[in-house]
C-alpha cells in the first residue's frame, strides 16, 4: 500500500473525532484550516451509481453521446421553465437527470494521465478514486495537492467535447425535438441558448479564467466565497480548484425561513454586484452550484458559463432601470430597450404594452418595499421570456450580448422562488447600482460596505 492510500485510510478512520474538532475550530469562517479535515468532510453523494460506472470512452458515447447529453441539458432547462409542468413530464425529466453514471476510477485516471502527464497518485499527494459529485459533462474528485491543499478536481468525460459539438451541429433535429417537447415556445432561441451553454461548458480553460476572475474579486468578502483555481493542475479537460464544504440546496430547504432569506439575499447581491461592479455575469445559477453556510454565507461553484460586459453593453440596461424605476419616463425606457436591441425600433405596439411586458423583468425592484418571490412568480417571468405568442413576440429579440444575462430570469428567479425569499430587493439593488450608490440596507450590506472600505479598488472594477 502506498503512503498516500494509508494516509487516506487513516483520515477516514478518524473522521468522527476530526469532525467534532472541526466544528469547534471553524467558528465564523468557511474553511477548515486543515486540508485533510476538509478532504474528509466533503461528503460523497449517495445517488452516484458506482456499480454502473462507465468503463471506456465507448460507454461514455453510448450514455451521453448521440444527443443524449444535449437533451438531458435541455431537461434541466425545462425544469427551470415549467413550474407547473405535468407530473409525468417532471418525473421523466428527473429520471433522466440522474441517469448518467460516473466514470470508473480507472477511466477518470486515464483522463488525468492524458491531461496532467501522470497518474493521480503521481500528480497528487492524495486522490480519492470515487467521485463525490457529478458534473454535467464530468465528475468531481477530491484530492490533496503535493503542497498540501485540499482541492476539488473536475474531470471531463473522454470524448464528450467532440460528440457535443457534433450533436449541436444537427440543428434541424434539435429544433424538431424541442418543438415536440415544448409546443408554443420559441424553439429557435431555446436551441441557440442550449448550444451556447454547452459549447462553453466543454471548455475548462475558459471556465478556469472566469472562475479566477470572480475568486480574485470576492477575496475577503464576508458572505461570498468563490474557490480559487489551481492553474498548474488545470487544463482543457481537468479543472482543479480549492475544495469547499457546505450545505446543499436541498439541505438549505430544510433550514428555517430566516436562513433561506439570508442565503437568497447573498445570492441576489452576488448576481447584482458581479454584473454592475465586476461587469461579469455567471450564467449558471443552478441550485447545484451553491454551497450554503449558516448566517447567509454562500460559496459559488461552477463558472462554466460566464459573460463579460463592456460599458457599452451595460449602458442601455442601466438607462432602462433609471427611466423605468426612477424617472418613470416610459418613452425613454422604450428607447433604451430599442438601443439595446431587445425591441425593434418603430414596432407598432403601444408603449403601455412595452412597459407591461418588459416591466415584468423589473418586478423585484419597482417598489421600495419587502417582496416575496414565489415559484409561480419565477416561472411566469421565465415563460414570458420564451413566449413566441405574445403581442411583442414579432418585435422583440434577445441580442447576443445579453443572452447569458437573460439567464437571470431562467435560473436566479427560479432559485429565489423555490426559497420563497423575502427582502427589500429594491434597497439592495440601490446599494449596488453605480448611479445610486445607496447606503447599506441590511446587516449583510453593512458587512459588505466594511469590506469595500478596506478594498476600495473593488467599488468599481473595470475589466
Amino acid at each position, binding site marked *: 500500500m502506498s503512503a498516500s492510500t494509508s494516509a487516506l485510510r487513516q483520515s477516514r478512520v478518524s473522521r468522527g473525532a476530526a469532525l467534532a474538532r472541526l466544528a469547534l475550530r471553524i467558528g465564523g469562517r468557511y474553511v477548515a484550516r486543515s486540508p485533510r479535515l476538509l478532504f474528509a468532510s466533503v461528503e460523497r453523494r449517495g445517488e452516484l451509481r458506482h456499480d454502473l460506472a462507465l468503463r471506456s470512452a*465507448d460507454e461514455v458515447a453510448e450514455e451521453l*453521446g448521440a444527443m443524449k447529453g444535449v437533451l438531458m441539458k435541455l431537461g434541466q432547462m425545462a425544469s427551470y421553465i415549467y413550474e407547473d409542468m405535468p407530473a409525468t*413530464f417532471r418525473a*421523466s425529466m428527473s429520471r*433522466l437527470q440522474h*441517469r448518467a453514471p460516473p466514470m470508473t476510477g480507472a477511466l477518470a485516471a486515464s483522463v488525468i494521465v492524458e491531461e496532467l502527464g501522470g497518474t493521480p497518485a503521481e500528480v497528487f499527494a492524495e486522490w480519492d478514486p470515487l467521485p463525490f459529485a457529478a458534473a454535467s459533462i464530468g465528475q468531481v474528485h477530491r484530492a490533496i495537492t503535493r503542497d498540501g491543499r485540499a482541492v476539488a478536481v473536475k474531470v471531463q468525460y473522454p470524448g464528450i467535447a467532440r460528440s457535443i459539438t457534433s*450533436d449541436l451541429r444537427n440543428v434541424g433535429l434539435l429544433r424538431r425535438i424541442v418543438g415536440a417537447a415544448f*409546443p408554443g415556445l420559441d424553439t429557435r432561441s431555446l436551441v441557440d441558448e442550449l448550444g451556447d451553454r454547452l459549447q462553453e461548458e466543454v471548455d475548462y480553460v475558459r471556465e478556469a479564467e472566469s472562475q479566477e476572475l470572480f475568486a480574485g474579486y470576492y477575496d475577503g468578502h464576508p458572505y461570498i466565497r468563490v474557490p480559487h483555481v489551481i492553474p498548474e493542475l488545470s487544463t482543457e479537460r481537468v479543472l482543479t480548484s480549492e475544495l469547499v464544504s457546505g450545505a446543499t440546496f436541498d439541505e438549505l430547504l430544510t433550514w428555517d425561513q430566516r436562513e433561506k432569506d439570508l442565503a437568497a439575499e447573498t445570492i441576489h447581491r452576488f448576481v447584482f454586484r458581479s454584473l454592475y461592479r465586476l461587469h461579469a455575469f455567471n450564467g449558471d445559477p443552478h441550485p447545484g452550484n451553491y454551497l450554503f453556510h449558516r448566517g447567509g454565507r454562500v460559496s459559488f461553484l461552477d463558472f462554466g458559463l460566464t459573460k463579460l460586459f463592456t460599458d457599452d453593453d451595460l449602458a442601455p440596461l442601466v438607462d432602462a432601470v433609471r427611466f423605468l424605476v426612477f424617472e418613470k419616463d416610459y418613452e425613454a425606457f422604450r428607447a433604451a430597450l430599442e438601443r439595446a436591441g431587445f425591441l425593434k425600433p418603430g414596432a407598432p405596439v403601444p408603449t403601455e404594452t412595452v412597459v407591461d411586458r418588459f416591466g415584468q423583468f423589473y418586478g423585484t425592484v419597482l417598489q421600495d418595499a419587502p417582496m416575496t418571490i414565489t415559484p409561480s412568480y419565477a416561472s411566469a417571468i421565465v415563460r414570458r421570456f420564451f413566449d413566441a405568442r405574445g403581442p411583442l413576440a414579432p418585435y422583440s429579440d434577445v441580442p447576443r450580448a445579453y443572452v447569458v444575462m437573460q439567464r437571470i430570469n431562467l435560473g436566479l428567479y427560479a432559485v429565489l422562488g423555490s426559497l420563497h425569499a423575502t427582502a427589500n430587493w429594491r434597497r439592495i439593488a440601490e446599494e449596488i447600482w453605480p448611479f445610486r450608490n445607496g447606503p447599506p440596507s441590511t446587516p449583510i450590506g453593512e458587512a459588505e460596505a466594511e469590506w469595500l472600505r478596506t478594498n476600495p479598488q473593488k467599488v468599481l472594477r473595470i475589466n
Partner: protein
Amino acid sequence: METARLSPLEPLARAYVKAVAAQPADGGLFGPKSMVWRVNRDRSFPLAGMRSLMVQALHPLAMAGVAQHSAWRQDPFGRLAATSSYVLTTTYGDTASALAAAAWVRKVHTRVRGTDPQTGLPYSAEDPALLLWVHAGMVDSIVEVVRRYGRPIEPADLDRYVAEMVTFAEIIGVPREEVPATADSLRAYVESVELRQATPAAKEAIAIVLDPPDLDAETRDLWHDLAQVAVGTLPDWAREMYGYPAPPAELMEREPVRQLLGALDLAFESLPGVLEARQRIELRTRA
C-alpha cells in the same frame, strides 16, 4: 415529450419492463456474457426492427400468414410490442420464461395456415422453411444495422452473434443444422430463397410500418426519417421490389442517424421502469 406524444412507445416500454425480470431463476438461454445479450440491447434496434419487417414481408407465404391471421392493423404498436417482448424474454428472461414464450408462439402457429391469394400456394406457420425465413430476415437485419449504426463491434463478434442466435430459430421449430451460423452464410441463404416478391399485402403492410397512423406531427417527422434510413439499409433487390428510391447518401451517414436513434432512445428511457430494467441487465453482465 408530453405523455400523449410518447404513446407509441408506451406498450414497448411496458413489454420491456415485464420481459426483464427482477429475480430471474438463471441466466437464460444465452447468458449475460453472450453476444446475444450485448447485441440485442443495441440502441439501433428500432431501425433493425423496421428493416426486419421489410425483409420478412417479402416472402409471400410468410406475409399471407400475418395478413390473414393477425389483427395488427388495429394496433400496430401493440403488435410490435408483442414481438419485441418475445425477443426480450427469450434473450434476458430465465430459461423457463424463454421456453414458455416459445411454446406459446408455437401453439399459436398451429392455427396459422391457409392459401396465399397471390401465388395460390398453401402455407403453414409451422413450416420450418417459413420459420427460417423469418429468423434470417430478423438476424440479417440486426447484423446489418448494428454494423452500420450500433456500438462498434468486431466482425468476428457478429459471427459469434449469428451462431448463438441459432438457438433462437431452434426453439421456434427450425432444426438446428438448417440454420446458417455466420453473417455471410445467413445473407447467402436470404438471397437464395426463390419465392421472393412484394405482394400487394406486403406493400400495404410496409406502407403502414413506414407511416403509422395516429402519430402527432413532430413524432411523425422523426419516424419518417428513421423509416427512410431503414429503407436505405435494405439490399437493392429488396428496396426495388417495393419500388422505393434509394435515400440520399447524407441521410445514411452514421453520425446523424445515431443522433436520431439517441434522441428516440432517451425518450424511451424516460418511460417508467425502462432505465431500471436496463440497469438490471447491465449489472448482470458485470456480475
